[in-house]
């Protein structure tokens, strides 16, 4: 924890626009060299938080420090923070070289050194040879690489990415995403990315912070957040999930008239729950195993409603006790294990999940 002072620290930051409270006492720390993602739906306050850190918007309350300096009231031009915007925000009247060199020029870097550093960072983002072009002559993916180069060339103490991939096509997005991960690892720059795309957040970050309604709901490693969501919101926001309404019954769980064995993940949590408590068992679709036939002891039985072929995954929709329809995705092999007929009885094995109050 000694390196905490080197990174970004946000303490109890609040912000309101008129009557709307956009951020409520948000506190978080990003250690030096880390890649954190602020994940949340639109209106969660994530972009406002980013703008406060960059200095584009003043906070109503709270404090921000970067590498031990208080930057709360510092104008953006003194913060030494690189920012990459959703729509690139390249200066249209300047060439790629001039765009990237802008920050160095503002810092009074001499022409020769400027040229060398621009060349170096162009190599880093694999855009060597594009220096003379105007942004309009580049594709979206290329423009975002240039924007990244422009933000990195000033050797910022913090790199902020505001939905950097959302304006790109699906294929280009994956490409740039991988580049982003490589470049961040290579440069070791402390990075905070704002996104609403959970897949992006899980892929890129070493720590995901879920923001909703202006407050942090949960933070942790991607696998941790995905596998053990803290509440229904986080569970639902990070990909498809089944929320089964169950009752605690000693070492078993009851769903309607059926009693079944809980997955190993939740046994500890279940021991703490009082008998008869109504809980939600959150199960990712891939944590369920399905077989044709009636349920045996300790298994969950249901009826097949539909099979949906989706390329690499197949989704089976199953009705369990008339309660919420559960979803299941698997490899296409499962179709071969059929015959699957709508209305037929199936049995479910719950292999994992988490208990939410």
């Amino acid at each position, binding site marked *: 924890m000694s390196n905490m002072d080197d990174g970004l620290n946000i303490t109890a930051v609040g912000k309101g626009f008129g009557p709307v409270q956009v951020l409520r006492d948000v506190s978080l720390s990003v250690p030096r060299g880390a890649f954190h993602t602020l994940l949340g739906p639109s209106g969660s306050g994530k972009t406002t938080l980013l703008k406060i850190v*960059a200095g584009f918007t003043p906070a109503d309350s709270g404090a921000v420090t970067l590498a031990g300096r208080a930057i709360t009231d510092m104008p953006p031009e003194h913060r030494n923070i690189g920012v990459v915007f959703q729509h690139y925000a390249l*200066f*249209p*009247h300047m060439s790629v070289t001039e765009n990237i060199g*802008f920050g160095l020029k*503002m810092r009074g870097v001499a022409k020769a050194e400027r040229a060398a550093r621009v060349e170096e960072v162009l190599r880093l983002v694999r855009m060597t040879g594009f220096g003379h072009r105007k942004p309009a002559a580049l594709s979206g993916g290329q423009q975002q690489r240039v924007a990244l180069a422009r933000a990195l060339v*000033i050797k910022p103490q913090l790199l902020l990415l505001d939905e950097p991939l959302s304006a790109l096509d699906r294929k280009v997005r994956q490409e740039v995403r991988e580049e982003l991960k490589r470049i961040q690892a290579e440069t070791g720059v402390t990075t905070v990315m704002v996104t609403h795309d959970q897949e992006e957040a899980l892929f890129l970050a070493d720590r995901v912070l879920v923001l909703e309604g202006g407050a942090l709901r949960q933070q942790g490693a991607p696998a941790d957040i995905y596998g053990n969501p803290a509440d229904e919101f986080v569970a639902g926001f990070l990909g498809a999930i089944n929320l089964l309404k169950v009752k605690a019954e000693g070492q078993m769980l009851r769903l309607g008239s059926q009693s079944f064995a809980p997955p190993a993940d939740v046994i500890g949590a279940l021991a703490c729950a009082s008998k008869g408590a109504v809980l939600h068992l959150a199960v990712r679709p891939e944590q369920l195993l399905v077989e044709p036939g009636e349920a045996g002891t300790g298994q969950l039985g249901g009826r097949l409603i539909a099979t949906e072929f989706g390329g690499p995954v197949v989704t089976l929709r199953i009705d369990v006790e008339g309660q919420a329809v559960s979803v299941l995705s698997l490899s296409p092999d499962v179709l071969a294990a059929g015959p699957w007929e709508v209305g037929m009885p199936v049995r479910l094995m719950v292999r994992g999940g988490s208990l939410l109050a």
Partner: protein
Amino acid sequence: MRKSRLRDAEALSPFMIGMLALSLAILFVPLVIIILLSFNTSPYGTFPFQGTLKWYAALFTDSGLLGPTWLSVELSFLVAVSAAVFGTMAAVWLDRRASKIAGTMFRAALLSAITVPWLILGLAMLLVMNAIGLGRSLFAIYLGLLATVLPYVVFIVSARLNALDRDLDFAARSLGASPIVSFLRVSAPLILPSILSGTLIAFMVSFNNFLIQYFLAPFGVQTLPLKIYTLIRVGYLPDLNALATLIVGITCLLIAILHRLGLRNAGLPGGAAL
């Protein structure tokens, strides 16, 4: 079905071609006649047409038209440049700093300056100038014309500013530019065409504006519109036609320049001021 009807609507019917020809004729035939007469020997517009350049010679020697013309050009130049400076400042304020209420009120005030008839504006301005002790003077004309043309610059420039991505300014700031440097290096070059368009339009509106000049000119001072008005009442020589021809030529040149500057992208509503 729908598509073919649309094409019918877009195609020019003979009636529409006729209307178009008539409108263009009403606009341009008088201009053509003036241009022809400026090269005709007869001072009374009578035929046969005999080519001459003597009216042009007269214009530049002893017509008494050049003085008022230069006064108008100088005055309008001053007005247009001032309007460019103040108008751009106002547009930046509107775009970046103005509160919602202040912005709306300012826009409404500017719009009313365009829509209130110049006759009324001129009269009102004379009253105000008298009240504040300026009275009829060159400075009063300058102020009056400036107020008249300012809205054009503000609307044209703020339309362009509005279309600029706010993130460009943020990007420049995060890279180390102060607000002023960011404006000069990033925003200003991008809105320059609209500033130039606004300035040219301000110049033309100011140059043309008879009413404001009529109400505010001190006795004995004659701008070109006032001079022409006087001449028309007492009868005039074709040297005025020569001047008119030159002005038409220069106006065409200005319009061509405006077009090159990308006026259509500068956000002028319908090019109405032209």
